[in-house]
């Protein structure tokens, strides 16, 4: 089967051969029910050639579908062409079409689920418990150890998906107050000093937004001698501008 050849590939928006073929059908505004799939062989092959950056092994599944399309095209040109003896099932146009249509439905459903997720309309459960404040009791240490084992088992593999990796969440509000306090106490501070030794991206962004807010509210002045040098944040003293313009 097509599916068991090589790992998942995402290149130029193509997650796999079926998606590439479906996209061709859609782009050419063809009817999935009536399009002669063999006619798409050339266009499909051109796309596969564009995938040259891929390791050979990962192109295999794309090529498998390409060869199938070429075979379908040959058949349509030479109707007399008899099925090859060792040809396995799933090689006929109807079967490939059925797979493509099924995949189209999956993609549509995935899109509908994605829309739901993006709408943010999710439910929340209650963690339960009575309103009466009782000390926790009845914990089973074996259940706790089992939960830990389960977490470890699930965490054992490296994650490669493009999901947002968890990180600390910072509050711009809190950060603004912090920086204001530092500037009031010390008069000035550098951006590097505010970032600290090992800033995360989120931390840098929040710090920067906080600075912009302070600047907007005329709490601080920002100074930078040259491009790419450190920014100095100075407390803005009203009526007595510290920096000549």
């Amino acid at each position, binding site marked *: 089967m097509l599916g068991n050849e090589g790992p998942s590939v995402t290149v130029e928006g193509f997650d796999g051969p079926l998606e590439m073929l479906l996209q061709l059908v859609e782009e050419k505004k063809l009817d999935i029910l009536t399009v002669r799939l063999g006619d798409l062989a050339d266009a499909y092959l051109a796309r596969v050639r564009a995938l040259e950056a891929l390791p050979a092994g990962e192109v295999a599944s794309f090529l498998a579908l390409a060869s199938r399309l070429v075979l379908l095209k040959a058949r349509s040109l030479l109707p007399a062409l008899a099925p090859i003896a060792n040809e396995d099932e799933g090689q006929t146009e109807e079967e490939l079409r059925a797979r493509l*249509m099924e995949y189209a439905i999956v993609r549509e459903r995935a899109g509908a689920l994605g829309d739901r997720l993006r709408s943010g309309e999710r439910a929340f459960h209650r963690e339960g418990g009575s309103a009466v404040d009782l000390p926790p009791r009845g914990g089973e240490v074996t259940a706790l150890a089992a939960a830990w084992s389960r977490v470890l088992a699930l965490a054992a593999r490296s994650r490669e998906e493009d999901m947002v990796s968890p990180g600390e969440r910072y509050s711009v509000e809190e950060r603004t107050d912090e920086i204001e306090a530092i500037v009031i106490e010390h008069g000035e501070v550098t951006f590097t000093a505010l970032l600290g030794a090992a800033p995360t991206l989120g931390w840098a962004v929040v710090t920067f937004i906080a600075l912009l807010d302070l600047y907007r509210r005329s709490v601080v002045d920002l100074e930078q001698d040259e491009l790419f040098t450190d920014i100095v944040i100075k407390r803005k003293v009203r009526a007595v501008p510290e920096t000549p313009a």
Partner: protein
Amino acid sequence: MRSPLANAVEAVLFVAEKPVSRAEIAKVVGGTPKQVDAALLELAEGYSGTGLRLAHDGDDWQLVTAPEQAPAVAAYLGADRLRVSPASLETLAVIAYRQPVTRAEVEAIRGVNCDQTIYTLMQRRLIEERGRRDGPGRPILYGTTWEFLECFGLSSLDDLPRALTPEGTVPEAEAREVGGSSSP
């Protein structure tokens, strides 16, 4: 006016720390499974237009917040939004609508290796193992979880968005056959 049994079921579901089966509800409120069914139906109808919903996965029942109240609840809990890649959404779509399915069946439909997406969905607790299929190799079966229903704001699997494709373009029987062709 609600029936006393429905109120008892409501109170139990409110304090429960996890979904409660119909059998357990019947046991603690002292009703027959049939009476419990009627009470659950009564509750579900009563929650329409409120901030709560009655959700179920098979025979397990749970009280949850109405999806449209998510912004207020997320603001209170400080929860942030779950993000799932398009590739994982496709795998999830196959599993949600076809469960229980094996990895090979998902791959046959998507046409690509789904090892990584299945792993990611497992880690996000959106899918879980559901036993094994009889046959050579006894492959693992996958199904969706409570978290899946919750994250997508579904009261049950019956709430899954229906295909937007015109009816009858793909006969479900044929589709199944294709999907199952990789498993013996």
